[in-house]
């Protein structure tokens, strides 16, 4: 058989009906994750047409986007402040009950951001197909799954049939050589990759991240890299499962044991791209040359090393508009720019290692006067772990707010927003106009850089504080 890459193996295993020139493939979906924002219309469609959820055992629901991060609101001691958000939460509770879907609801200790809890609770496994009505579903590819975001109509298709109609995407190899340097994180690596291939460079493709620079990453770092594949236009990003993956999986709740585990590992090992496998496109990046990165514009491709200078305008109207939205000018250095808000959290950087990185910088230091810093764990489990490890105390004594898990300020749906005109250094994934609040100015960076900038009250290079 011809040499196949990781994506081609997973795709072939899930083809119920192969594609033809006239019809897309029918692709089987192993795991369907749902949340409160993109599922209501799909459940309503099922109800209106008298359909059932075909495989509730392959469907899991959680609440994350519009949920409050203040404890009193979460415990329902106080009302969720936004009526419509409260209604979405109630509706998902009702839909889950009515259709027999398991829900990690508001009071559940397993609840969290959908892309954090899938891997954490052992649902995400190598070789699976995973979809969710959410573009950052690409995150799950870090374990060797084919995972991508879909729209609400497709959510309905998967609920009703456990399948999707799909054209086979092209493949894109991103090979990472070398190792990340001290103070440089997986977030900086993926921002550098996006800067290199552009925000639409991956459109129509599934990215496979490979090479020694990827093999050297921890599981959590790999999740950060795959998470932002969509910011390069790719619906999915994948990393072949290896010893790091298996060690991570072995600790997960509900994981198979004994012989079943050994068989699974043998199967997962065979998913790696064959020697000689080919890709439609490829680039090579040197991780050792990557520096702490920060965005200066209104898409994640407008990114620089933190010590860099904003490019001078090339008379490009879109570029000019982005700079004017940000209140920046060509030729200005990023270091020393004003910071009003710092957000550490999201499905990109809301895991334990991310919180540990931020805490390393903050320990024994204080958030600068006039800066609001919010630390929002990616899940309730991470929240408990961070509290046990004393990280929460570090954040609180530095003057940061420590919250319940959720998407929070990543997209500002739950009331946690950035004021118009304010500068927010954020560990999330999108710096689009208005993403964190009307008129909010977002600068994407790593947890190290975010924490260092909180302490300095200005954009700072974290390597000076480590």
């Amino acid at each position: 058989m011809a040499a196949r890459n990781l994506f081609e193996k997973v795709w072939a295993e899930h083809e119920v009906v192969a594609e033809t020139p006239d019809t897309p493939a029918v692709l089987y979906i192993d795991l369907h994750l749902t949340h409160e924002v993109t599922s209501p219309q799909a459940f309503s469609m099922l109800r209106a047409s008298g359909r059932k959820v075909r495989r509730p055992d392959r469907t899991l629901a959680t609440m994350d986007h519009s949920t409050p991060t203040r404890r009193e609101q979460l415990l329902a001691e106080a009302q969720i402040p936004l009526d419509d958000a409260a209604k979405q939460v109630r509706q998902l509770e009702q839909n889950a009950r009515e259709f027999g879907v398991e829900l990690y609801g508001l009071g559940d200790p397993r609840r969290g951001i959908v892309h954090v809890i899938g891997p954490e609770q052992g649902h995400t496994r190598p070789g699976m197909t995973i979809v969710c009505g959410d573009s950052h579903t690409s995150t799950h590819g870090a374990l060797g799954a084919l995972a991508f975001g879909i729209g609400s109509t497709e959510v309905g298709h998967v609920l009703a049939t456990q399948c999707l109609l799909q054209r086979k995407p092209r493949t894109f190899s991103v090979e990472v050589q070398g190792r990340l340097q001290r103070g440089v994180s997986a977030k900086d690596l993926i921002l550098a990759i996006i800067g290199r291939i552009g925000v639409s460079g991956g459109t129509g493709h599934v990215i496979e991240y490979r090479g020694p620079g990827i093999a050297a990453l921890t599981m959590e770092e790999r999740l950060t890299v795959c998470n932002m594949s969509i910011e390069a236009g790719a619906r999915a990003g994948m990393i072949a499962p290896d010893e790091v993956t298996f060690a991570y999986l072995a600790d997960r709740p509900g994981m198979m044991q004994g012989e079943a585990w050994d068989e699974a590992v043998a199967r997962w090992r065979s998913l790696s791209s064959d020697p000689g496998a080919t890709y439609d496109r490829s680039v090579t990046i040197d991780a050792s040359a990557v520096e702490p990165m920060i965005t200066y514009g209104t898409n994640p491709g407008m990114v620089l090393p933190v010590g860099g200078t904003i490019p001078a305008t090339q008379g490009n109207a879109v570029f000019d508009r982005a700079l004017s939205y940000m209140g920046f000018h060509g030729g200005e250095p990023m270091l020393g720019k004003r910071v009003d808000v710092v957000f550490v959290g999201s499905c990109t950087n809301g895991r334990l290692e991310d919180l540990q990185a931020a805490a390393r910088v903050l320990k024994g230091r204080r958030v600068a006067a006039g800066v609001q810093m919010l630390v929002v764990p990616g899940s309730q489990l991470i929240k408990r772990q961070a509290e046990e490890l004393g990280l929460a105390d570090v954040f609180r004594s530095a003057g940061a707010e420590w919250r319940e898990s959720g998407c929070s300020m990543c997209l500002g749906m739950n009331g946690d927003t950035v004021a118009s005109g304010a500068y927010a250094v954020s560990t999330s994934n999108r710096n689009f106009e208005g993403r964190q609040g009307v008129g909010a100015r977002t600068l994407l960076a790593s947890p190290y850089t975010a924490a260092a900038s909180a302490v300095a009250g200005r954009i700072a290079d974290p390597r000076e504080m480590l």
Partner: protein
Amino acid sequence: MEPIRQIRSRTVVLASSNIDTDQIIPARFLTVTTRSGLGRSLFQDLRHLPDGRPDPQFPLNRPEAAGCTILVAGDNFGCGSSREHAPWALVDHGFRAVVSTAMADIFTNNALKNGLLPVIVDADTHRWLIDHPGAEILIDLEARRLTLPDGRSSAFPVEAFARHCLLNGIDELGYLQGKLAEIERYEAAHGR
């Protein structure tokens, strides 16, 4: 769904590239549990001045935009979030087609499922359209051609099955459910 064969309209032009779905419909309007009425919030933050009044210069707010059903947009339209609220808002506003040089994958899929035609044209045709807002053009789905007012026309690609469904007003879910026997066979054979 209503079959679509041809769309003839004057265009509205938003020349910016990378118009993401947060700009098409900001997240604070996603707390809905139905899909109707989102047209009101389409391009909300682009359409309004900082003081909240409608921006009279924004192309969609200009009187000549009334009744236009074709939107011409810059590169990489619809990037970002997978929210289907984006095509729902565009369709609710009255758009039937979006023309660009490139569109995001998830947006393209979502648009096709809602009778909003994503039309990818060559750079020259796109340039002409950007430079001539309000031009009356014809998009012919059956012929897969976009025709400019002077009669020049160019081909555009559209996935064969989505085209078949749009031309005939077929719901893709019905087709997928027709494969139930194959799905059951797959589940039995693959231990699903």
